[in-house]
């Protein structure tokens, strides 16, 4: 079964998949890594983004990426709103850890079941002229349905990295992650800064969802596999490090692709959780830990 050609193809597919995983994980790296908000509902917002892309594609013929970009302001608003509820109910009272977790678990469940009620369990997919195309370099095939999400994912990662390191608000978000109290002493409002950051985290889900449905058909319960993936990437990447997120996402993508190629696709879901358990047990600070 083993051949160099197969290995090479699996590696390339893994790298492409990794770029996409980065896009899905950025939101959790920000919310969980930087803000300490355990939003395990993040993957379900990615699903929401995927279904938004589906609706716009089927009804109006919009390109999924265009929909992803168009929906980011809406998702940003949703994120700010969600953070307000979270803040008022848990964070302000200092009861965030466990009850906050249960809260997001409930949100996950509500959104998933709502999607189920609206779209059913059938797999949905989008159409765009480039999705079926592919490129061949020697014996290695590069499918556009993987290449485009990878390019967009890497671009999104770069944009977020620049935003966090170069702009005023980006630096304020980094500051609130380091020491919210000190930020308050500087006269800034941590609540507002965290609201903006959480809004951005959810906004990335709109685009990530569009990429998800481009890669393959989606159904509402799919978000659960991504819970393991995004947390594995966030922890392995070092909690809030954007560069680390990309590296960890690439590692996970390659590991999954190799597993799927050589042991069968049904095992690839377990890979992310294996990576997560391993990372938590051996090096909880991640590869690029603060």
């Amino acid at each position, binding site marked *: 079964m083993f051949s160099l050609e197969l290995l090479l193809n699996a590696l390339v597919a893994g790298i492409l998949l990794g770029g996409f995983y980065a896009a899905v994980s950025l939101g959790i790296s920000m919310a969980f890594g930087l803000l300490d908000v355990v939003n395990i509902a993040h993957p379900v917002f990615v699903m929401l983004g995927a279904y938004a892309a589906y609706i716009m594609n089927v009804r109006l013929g919009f390109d999924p990426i265009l929909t992803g970009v168009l929906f980011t302001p809406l998702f940003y608003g949703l994120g700010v709103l969600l953070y307000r509820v979270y803040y008022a109910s848990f964070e302000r009272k200092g009861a965030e850890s*466990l009850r906050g977790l*249960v*809260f997001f678990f*409930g949100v996950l*469940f*509500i959104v998933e079941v709502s999607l189920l009620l609206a779209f059913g369990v059938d797999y949905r997919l989008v159409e765009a002229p480039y999705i079926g195309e592919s490129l061949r370099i020697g014996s290695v095939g590069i499918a556009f349905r993987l290449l485009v999400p990878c390019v967009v994912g890497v671009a999104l990662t770069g944009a977020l990295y620049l935003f966090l390191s170069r702009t005023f608000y980006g630096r304020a978000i980094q500051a609130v992650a380091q020491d919210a109290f000190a930020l308050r002493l500087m006269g800034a409002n941590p609540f507002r800064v965290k609201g903006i950051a959480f809004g951005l985290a959810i906004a990335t889900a709109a685009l990530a969802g569009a990429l998800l449905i481009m890669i393959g058909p989606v159904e509402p319960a799919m978000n659960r596999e991504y*819970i393991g993936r995004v947390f594995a990437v966030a922890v392995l990447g070092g909690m809030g490090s954007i560069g680390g997120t990309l590296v960890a996402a690439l590692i996970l993508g390659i590991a999954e692709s190799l597993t799927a190629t050589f042991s069968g696709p049904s*095992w690839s879901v377990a890979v992310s959780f294996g990576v997560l358990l391993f990372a*938590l047990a051996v090096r909880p600070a991640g590869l690029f830990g603060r």
Partner: protein
Amino acid sequence: MAGRTFAALAVVVVAAGLAVTGLGVNQYYYFAAYVVLQYVVLATAWNILGGYTGYVNFGTPAFFALGAYTAVVLIQSMKAPLVVQLLGGAAVAGVLGLGIGYLTLRLRGVFFSIATLALAVVLQTLFVNWEYTGGARGITLARPATTPLGGSYVEYLFVVMLVLTVIAVATAWWIEHSWVGRGLAAIRDNEEAAECMGVPTLRLKLVATTVSGLLMGLAGGSFPYYLTFIEPASVFDLNYAVNSLAMPMIGGSTTWMGPVIGAILLGTAQQVATVTISSALNLLIVGVILVAFVILAPEGIVGLVQRLARRGRA
């Protein structure tokens, strides 16, 4: 509640359960009551770790399914009787619980919760790929032709689940009223401080995770004969994770009564809603109620009643 009152209540509950079998009513009622009782066991088991100790477990399906699949293996390999299935399921899930307990050495709070969720997904993948227990397609199991008590097999299973419920709730009651419960509460409130005061935190956590896992496995042990069909997608269903956590949260997570009240209310409501509305919509309702309670009444129904009673007295 004093020990003697509690024991008397337990006897009355089992006697009442025996009395309602053989009434000749529609078999569906036993079928539905079994599910509600199963939720009482799962919610009580979850609460021993989640409510008493403060470790949120998202992996209820893992323990429940492990109990069910152990029973499947026992049926497949040696046609084991129901009692052996239950004990086997409980033992294997208990061992998994013990393993999870050691995990708490390194993983606290959120990381523990994510790890339990991870565990459920990894186990599901294992069973999807294991052909002996039917793989992803699932496996059909035939019930024995006769029942020890006479009457239908569903009635018999109902009585068995009632006994398991009493065992689970009695365990929770005992923990709550013993030094173990006080130790667990100390861990929940502040693990470092408890350790410094000489509370054997690791040993107590191991007790909590093992007992919790064991009871979940016990509930799963009779599931193959109940449904006569087992597949990974249905036994690893996220609904078990949400319900076993929502029920104590809604009932009140600091007393044994909380999960019982939550499970009976929510479980019955879901059974009714599944028949009258739709199964997807009733899950939506569970989610909304859970979020509402977590935000508005974190101490649950029991806490609300206690607060009202205190206000009434003052």
